[in-house]
């Protein structure tokens, strides 16, 4: 439920920021669509995961952030990677396991991140990255850097012990970290009713003595306003905050999953609430962008992404004889 205040804040969002938000969401969407294409062409080894339908959340955090901030993306945060400096070509190289990608083919799909962008490469073990981001922020603060952390988790991930340990740890040490729960109704095939029994997941915030805030994860402007306010607040008053963004995973868990277990009505509801469409409409009514401009943006981005895919496809996977390199860092 929007308060008048929220409405005013959203209305006050700078047009340049609005455009950056839209651009990043569209970029993420197009890159994800390219991944899906490559996947179904059989060009991607292993599984493919996308964040389609959830772009507003990562986008808001990326746009609201400062260079010194640290991030712990998870499965559905392509927009975060792109918003923090990863390129479409970088993503294509990653999913195609090219030697020039962020992990040089040692890891695949969503398991990447560049520390120079303040982005930690996730491990699969859900929940494990929250404390890593917290520790990173703690270290930066000790070096006098006003860093803030953002860790993303799914609804399912809130059941892990790691989620709990990290939040409690961050609370005890007043670590400025925003933990965003992307509640997309499902953890793989398991609906939230099989995952928890609290009403809202931010009901857990009080148990850590921290603030818990809800937001509409499909409304980019609201997400942006909410996330930037929290980030700027905890930047000066360091402490963790829990934010639950309601959204929907618009595809299967991965591309191998036909998600028949999701009721059609739910998908329909969220198809009507697509974050990009919502933003385009909002921007249109605010006269920030017209249909033509949007079409041009899409075309431009599509071309960029297609070029990235072509480039990455022309490249190689790492040479087999590099297998043993770099297990340890050299002294």
């Amino acid at each position, binding site marked *: 439920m929007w308060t008048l205040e929220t409405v005013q804040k959203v209305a006050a969002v700078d047009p340049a920021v609005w455009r950056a938000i839209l651009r990043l969401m569209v970029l993420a969407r197009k890159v994800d669509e390219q991944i899906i294409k490559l996947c179904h062409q059989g060009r991607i080894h*292993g599984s493919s995961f996308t964040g389609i339908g959830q772009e507003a959340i990562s986008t808001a955090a990326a746009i609201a952030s400062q260079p010194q901030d640290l991030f712990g993306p998870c499965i559905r945060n392509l927009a975060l990677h792109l918003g923090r400096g990863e390129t479409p070509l970088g993503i294509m190289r990653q999913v195609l396991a090219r030697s020039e990608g962020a992990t040089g083919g040692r890891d695949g799909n969503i398991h990447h991140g560049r520390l120079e962008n303040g982005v930690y490469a996730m491990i699969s073990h859900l929940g494990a990255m929250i404390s890593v981001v917290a520790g990173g922020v703690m270290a930066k603060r000790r070096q006098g850097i006003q860093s803030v952390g953002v860790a993303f988790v799914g609804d399912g991930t809130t059941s892990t012990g*790691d989620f709990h340990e990290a939040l409690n740890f961050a609370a005890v040490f007043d670590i400025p970290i925003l933990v965003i729960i992307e509640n997309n109704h499902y953890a793989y095939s398991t609906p939230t009713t*099989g995952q928890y029994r609290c009403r809202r997941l931010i009901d857990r915030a009080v148990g850590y003595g921290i603030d818990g805030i809800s937001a509409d994860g499909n409304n980019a402007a609201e997400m942006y306003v909410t996330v930037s306010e929290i980030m700027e607040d905890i930047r000066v008053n360091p402490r963790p905050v829990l934010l639950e963004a309601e959204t929907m995973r618009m595809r299967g868990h991965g591309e191998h999953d036909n998600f028949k277990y999701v009721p059609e009505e739910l998908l329909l509801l969220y198809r009507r609430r697509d974050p990009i469409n919502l933003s385009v409409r909002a921007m249109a009514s605010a006269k920030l962008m017209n249909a033509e401009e949007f079409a041009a943006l899409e075309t431009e981005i599509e071309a960029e992404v297609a070029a990235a895919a072509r480039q990455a496809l022309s490249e190689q996977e790492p040479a*087999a004889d590099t297998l043993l390199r770099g297990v340890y860092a050299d002294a």
Partner: protein
Amino acid sequence: MREINYLQGIREGLHYVLEHDPTTLLFGQDVGAFGGAFKLTEGLQEAFGIERVFDTPICESAMLGCAIGMATQGMRPIVEMQFSDFITTALHQLLNNAGTRHYRTGNAVPMVIRAPSGGGSGGGPFHSEELEAFFCHMPGVKVVYPAFPSDARGLMLSAVADPNPVVYMENKTIYRAVKERVSDPFEPLPIGKARVCHEGMDAVVIAYGAMVHEALRAAGELQASDGYEVMVLDLRSLKPYDLDTILSAVSATGRALVVSEGWRTCGFAAEICAAITESAFHLLDAPVRRLTAPDTPVPFSTTLEARYRPNATTIADAVRQLIEF
């Protein structure tokens, strides 16, 4: 005789125990209506109801703890790790809680942990691990690792019937690739019994899991190309392992290669090497060799992963070296 694949073998084993033993239960993430990440448990919830086959939240420690509680109260829980890798979030429940309980209190803990393991299909560092060395190092825990559909069925029956915590390792890469003609009905396969699945006197390849099939291919290749007759021993159980059969094989051949797709240092292959050397030093015509994955995370790309995992070619090469020692 019907032909079934490895995955079906596991599923038939599960179906059998759920049907014949009302104290059994199967749970894990998405194992119910969805049928599991590999569709291995498909149909089981439908057949046995949501009380017997059910989904859990994402909480490996609570899942294992719950299984221990059930196992000590007359049930025989079977817990699926969606991927073997994720058990590292909760090893204390296996090592410390389940594994020590009978020794400390005399209370049996009959539970089975299904651990889909192994690389070869682009799972990357966190969906491909082979953790048998961890499991086998734990007092009080048993470990089985079938390589064939029939053994998968038989070992499931024995694992569930066993009054101890049993890690039932499954190799994901061979789920659908390995097929076998099997007969019905089927029987428990005793834990701790290896099987010679290819005869030969020039050397023995000791393997388990997916590596058995690579070893068999290597044996075929060596026969065709070099005329070598290589025995292939499928361990099937890793703890306890079948030292008698291993020693017979070593005594028959004088040369042994241990193959594992687990990491080298402190891996399961080291155990077998050490055990053979200790017990059959005088029977050896050449040092026991290990062929394992290197000590690197399991790499994602096809190029690296192909180099990472032992395969028929690298096994054949190692056997040649061993014979020509």
